[in-house]
């Protein structure tokens, strides 16, 4: 190819390869990518040479080849933009067509600087002239539609007008739509002809195109109210049209407009139900279902009909598309229509087993939507078991859904936290589990929020920690981190401290990342502290008791009480006695295993290891530790000091932190928050300041000798906690497992058992036969207190309000102006646009903030356009007169009779306006939108 580019052979210059030749060459070389790349490079060289040729035919073929290569082999062809423009003026039809195709595939205002150069040629081609055949005008329009800049659209908007009434009307409408998008200023010129196309007398294809365009506009507009005045036209199409495409679009428009005007729903109810019943076209039926569910959900008969149709969809075994859409339609129903989902329960559950991932996904969403307090236990158990045997992707989808639904709004669905915590443990055991982060978050979060769940939490954590298998799973290390933290923080609920410490320090922990390992060691620190404090306290308690009893009971004894005799009286929840030997053994074990870690490379591990060793050192240092005579231990002042300090260090409970906590903090005086901190970056240099996760767990990590400075500021709802503590006592033992049948979940530690339970979806159906019916049975166990900090906690705020608040855009303003910018007197109620304009005038005057109030800039724009478009108004008016006589308006006329009283009222109000003293309260009493067709 180097040869061809440097010196083209005679053959190459004489005979040009056509696009067909190029494709054949590419196809023959498509076996290897190297060959193909070479063939493309050779072709490009050729094209670069040919495209500069003065001969237009050569140029056109070269451009055609380039277009093909650029489009299907993803090459940049912006360099050839000028050559495309060169071909536009050619009198031979194929040349401009080739050029337009190339341009419409590759031009864009953002990348083609030469676009303005096309303006003149486009205008020439769009002009009404016999030489401009549809074959030429259509591609010109297409370029304008796809690659138009704001300037181009503005310049050529008026040139579209003649085409908007010619045979190429549909294409012109589609082009006008795109012109609006880039240039709202074009709306005043182009909008009127677009509205005209909606009339029944228009060519059907033009009607279809116009309805599509309005559908596009209404759905894209943040506030579709400017399109409300067209509702009568759309209604007429809904009733009279037999074109499914038109009907679908009209339904979509009504679905968008109905929330704005409640009476629209009443009006479209009958025609929509009629279509729903009669139409053989599935697409139209589906659109009707969608419209009913979104806009007619208050009309029970319509919803009933729609649900029946959905069932038909769901029952179509041979067509996965209909089943998929049917499930989606069910999902649209929302919580108010759970009965509909309930009716199709079996299909939904069986769909979990479908080969189609789409269908499975929708079924899962539906099932999650059906969850309520009474069935969450059964359904989630089943789903988690089902996840055990499904493919990795779907298993994680299930886990995700369960975690999200159960965790929603601070676990509002969960009554039995013991169950949920063990379910979390079970999820972590799923072989495909990749949701470690969320499980970690929830484990810790439940620990912080739900005191009653802590014993079970510790149990679940223990099972996870003891098992060496998860240590090698990178997805689970976050879960293990949470488990370690939980067992350390709530160590008082632990049954066997030695076992726990052994699990935390088992050799395989070296597979964990250093951050997680640091959490492990910090947990060991807490366990050691706890066991020591408990031990000392136990002796102290014994001492107090025994000194009181001494004279009575133990008088005859030697007076040396050993620890073996010590019995816990009340302050420690462990039923077993803590013996001196066991504490000693624990300390020995920790010392030998943690010892090597004090030399660890990783500072996080090293620091925590040294903390632990330091603590053990201090304990051993006490004078009496090694003496069996425990009795004297308590008299060592240092011991009691240590105990006091350590207790203080860990006594304050960690609580959840409100998302708004920082906002509530008052800014200290003299602190300027907005001060530029850019010079900080200089000081910090390369230091990575991203917060690492270990901070969460090392909040209170201090060296034992500095325990006085402990207790990092933790925000907690102290009143709630205090109350709760009073009620349950500091060390609260869980009530024994209750006898509710819903509690017979398998333990988290035996996944095999769980798998064997479920064989196929039929079992699921059987098992859940009752579970979707919300049971009223009272739970035998009351829901434990779940700490919620404030309304902002965990509740996701919906963005809907923001969408509604959002101000209108330029285009809507412009369109509203076109539709409403008519000052003519309302001759009948049909002329609602003028009626609305007048009312808007009033509102502006009285500064009433109703539906039609607009942002200021938009008003300014309106004003400008009012002046610009005076001629248009007269035309608009004329059209209305003409329309009133046209057939198909009987419906509207009828309504106008019905509302004759109201229209007389309008006239009265107009007089008010003319006098300019309309009392604002009269306006506000009126319904915001007057009768359009209703």
């Amino acid at each position, binding site marked *: 190819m180097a040869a061809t580019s440097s010196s083209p052979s005679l053959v190459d210059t004489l005979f040009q390869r056509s696009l067909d030749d190029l494709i054949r060459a590419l196809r023959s070389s498509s076996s290897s990518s190297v060959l193909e790349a070479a063939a493309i490079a050779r072709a490009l060289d050729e094209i670069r040479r040919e495209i500069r040729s003065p001969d237009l035919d050569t140029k056109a073929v070269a451009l055609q080849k380039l277009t093909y290569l650029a489009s299907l082999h993803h090459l940049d062809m912006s360099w050839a933009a000028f050559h495309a423009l060169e071909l536009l003026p050619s009198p031979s039809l194929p040349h401009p067509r080739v050029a337009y195709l190339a341009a419409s595939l590759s031009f864009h205002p953002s990348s083609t600087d030469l676009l303005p150069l096309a303006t003149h040629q486009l205008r020439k081609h769009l002009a009404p002239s016999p030489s401009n055949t549809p*074959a030429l005008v259509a591609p010109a329009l297409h370029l304008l539609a796809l690659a138009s800049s704001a300037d181009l659209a503005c310049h050529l908007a008026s040139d579209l007008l003649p085409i908007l009434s010619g045979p190429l009307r549909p294409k012109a409408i589609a*082009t006008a739509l795109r012109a609006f998008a880039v240039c709202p200023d074009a709306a005043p010129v182009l909008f009127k002809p677009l509205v005209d196309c909606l009339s029944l007398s228009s060519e059907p294809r033009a009607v279809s195109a116009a309805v599509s365009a309005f559908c596009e506009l209404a759905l894209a*507009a943040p506030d579709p109210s400017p399109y409300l005045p067209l509702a009568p036209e759309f209604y007429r199409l809904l009733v009279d049209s037999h074109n499914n495409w038109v009907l679908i679009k009209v339904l979509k428009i009504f679905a968008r407009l109905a929330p704005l005007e409640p009476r629209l729903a009443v009006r479209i109810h009958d025609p929509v139900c009629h279509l729903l019943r009669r139409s053989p076209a599935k697409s139209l039926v589906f659109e009707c279902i969608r419209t009913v569910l979104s806009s007619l959900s208050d009309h029970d008969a319509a919803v009933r009909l729609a649900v029946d149709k959905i069932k038909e969809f769901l029952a179509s075994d041979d067509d996965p598309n209909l089943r998929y859409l049917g499930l989606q339609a069910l999902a649209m129903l929302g919580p108010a229509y759970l009965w509909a989902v309930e009716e199709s329960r079996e299909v939904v559950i069986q769909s979990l087993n479908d080969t189609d991932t789409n269908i499975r996904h929708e079924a899962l969403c539906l099932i999650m939507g059906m969850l309520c307090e009474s069935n969450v236990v059964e359904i989630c158990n089943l789903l988690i078991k089902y996840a055990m045997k499904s493919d990795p992707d779907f298993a994680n989808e299930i886990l995700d859904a369960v975690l999200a639904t159960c965790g929603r709004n601070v676990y509002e669905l969960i009554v039995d936290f013991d169950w949920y915590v063990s379910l979390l443990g079970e999820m972590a055991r799923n072989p495909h589990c990749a949701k470690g982060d969320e499980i970690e978050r929830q484990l810790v979060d439940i620990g912080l929020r739900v005191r009653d769940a802590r014993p079970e939490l510790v149990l679940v954590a223990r099972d996870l920690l003891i098992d060496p298998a998860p240590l090698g799973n990178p997805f689970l290390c976050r879960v293990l981190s949470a488990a370690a933290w939980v067992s350390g923080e709530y160590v008082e609920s632990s049954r066997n401290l030695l076992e726990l410490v052994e699990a935390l320090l088992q050799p395989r922990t070296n597979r964990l990342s250093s951050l997680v390992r640091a959490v492990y060691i910090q947990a060991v620190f807490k366990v050691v502290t706890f066991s020591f404090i408990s031990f000392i306290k136990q002796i102290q308690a014994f001492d107090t008791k025994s000194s009181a009893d001494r004279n009575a009971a133990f008088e005859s004894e030697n007076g040396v009480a050993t620890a073996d005799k010590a019995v816990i009286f009340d302050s420690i929840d462990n039923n077993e006695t803590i013996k001196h030997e066991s504490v000693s053994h624990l300390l020995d074990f920790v010392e030998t295993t943690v010892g090597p870690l004090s030399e660890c490379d990783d500072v996080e591990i090293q620091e925590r290891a040294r903390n632990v060793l330091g603590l053990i050192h201090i304990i051993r240092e006490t004078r009496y530790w090694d003496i069996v005579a425990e009795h004297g231990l308590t008299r060592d002042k240092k011991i009691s000091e240590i105990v006091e300090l350590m207790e203080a260090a860990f006594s304050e409970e960690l609580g959840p932190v409100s998302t708004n906590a920082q906002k509530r903090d008052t800014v200290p005086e003299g602190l300027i928050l907005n001060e530029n901190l850019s010079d900080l970056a200089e000081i910090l240099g390369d230091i990575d300041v991203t917060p690492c996760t270990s901070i969460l767990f090392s909040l209170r990590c201090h060296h034992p000798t500095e325990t006085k400075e402990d207790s990092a500021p933790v925000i907690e709802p102290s009143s709630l906690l205090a109350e709760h503590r009073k009620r349950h006592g500091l060390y609260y033992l869980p009530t024994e497992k209750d006898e509710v049948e819903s509690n017979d979940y398998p333990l988290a530690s035996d996944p095999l058992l769980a798998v064997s339970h479920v064989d196929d979806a039929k079992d699921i159906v059987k098992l859940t036969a009752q579970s979707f019916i919300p049971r009223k049975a009272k739970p035998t166990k009351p829901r434990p207190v779940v700490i919620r900090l404030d309304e902002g906690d965990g509740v996701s705020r919906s963005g809907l309000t923001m969408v509604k608040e959002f101000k209108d855009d330029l285009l809507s303003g412009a369109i509203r102006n076109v539709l409403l910018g008519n000052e003519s007197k309302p001759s009948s109620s049909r002329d609602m646009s003028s009626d609305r304009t007048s009312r808007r005038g009033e509102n502006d005057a009285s500064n009433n903030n109703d539906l039609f109030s607009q942002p200021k800039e938009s008003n300014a724009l309106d004003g400008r356009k009012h002046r610009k478009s005076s001629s248009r108004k007269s035309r608009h008016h004329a059209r209305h007169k003409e329309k009133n006589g046209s057939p198909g308006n009987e419906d509207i006329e009828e309504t106008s009779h019905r509302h004759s009283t109201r229209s007389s009222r309008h006239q009265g109000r107009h007089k008010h306006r003319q006098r300019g003293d309309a009392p604002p309260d009269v306006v506000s009493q009126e319904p915001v939108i007057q009768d359009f067709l209703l």
Partner: protein
Amino acid sequence: MIRAVIVMNTQGKPRLLKFYEFQPPEKQQELTRSVFAVLSGRPDNVSNFVEADAIFGPVIFSSLLFVSFVAEITKKKKQEEFKEGTRLVYKHLATLYFVFVFDSCENELAMLDLIQVLVETLDRCFKNVCELDIVFNFNKIYNNQMKTTVFMYVELGSSYVQMHTILDEIIFGGQVLETSSERVLKAVEEISRLEKSSSSVSFVPKSVSGRFGR
């Protein structure tokens, strides 16, 4: 609106690409690849729809309508609420995938029907044009309404350009304008008639172009 039409073979090589919102070439390649990755992972006899928000992102057309709105949204990271509902519907016929990408303004099943219109039109159009390159294949079509011949491999230049012409008659600037393959064919025939009469000079003599056939 329809955001894109993609025809590609089962190896992922595009045969026709039409994006109704401008996409630079690299982006086109990326999109085509992601679509192929999704489609090739789907077995036969499953539903023909795929949620494509993740692939195609928010509609550029709409964002043009209210640029500031979108800016506001992205600032607040509220894209969740602003999902466009972009989907794609595809049909796997012989060795080709026909893919339409569309947003919430279109009806899913209607799009499926429209693919059928496109396929039928292409089929009828190319039957007589270049038989060598069309392999007829009987395929069961959606809803077993009809059996139709399906062309398999349209790649020659004349076909490529004609495919654009046909598609432009059906979908124009992202809007569906024509759903009858009869009328599409008529319009396409009219255009080729006009093209022929307008230029007496054919681009390159066939005999010469045949030289480079290999």
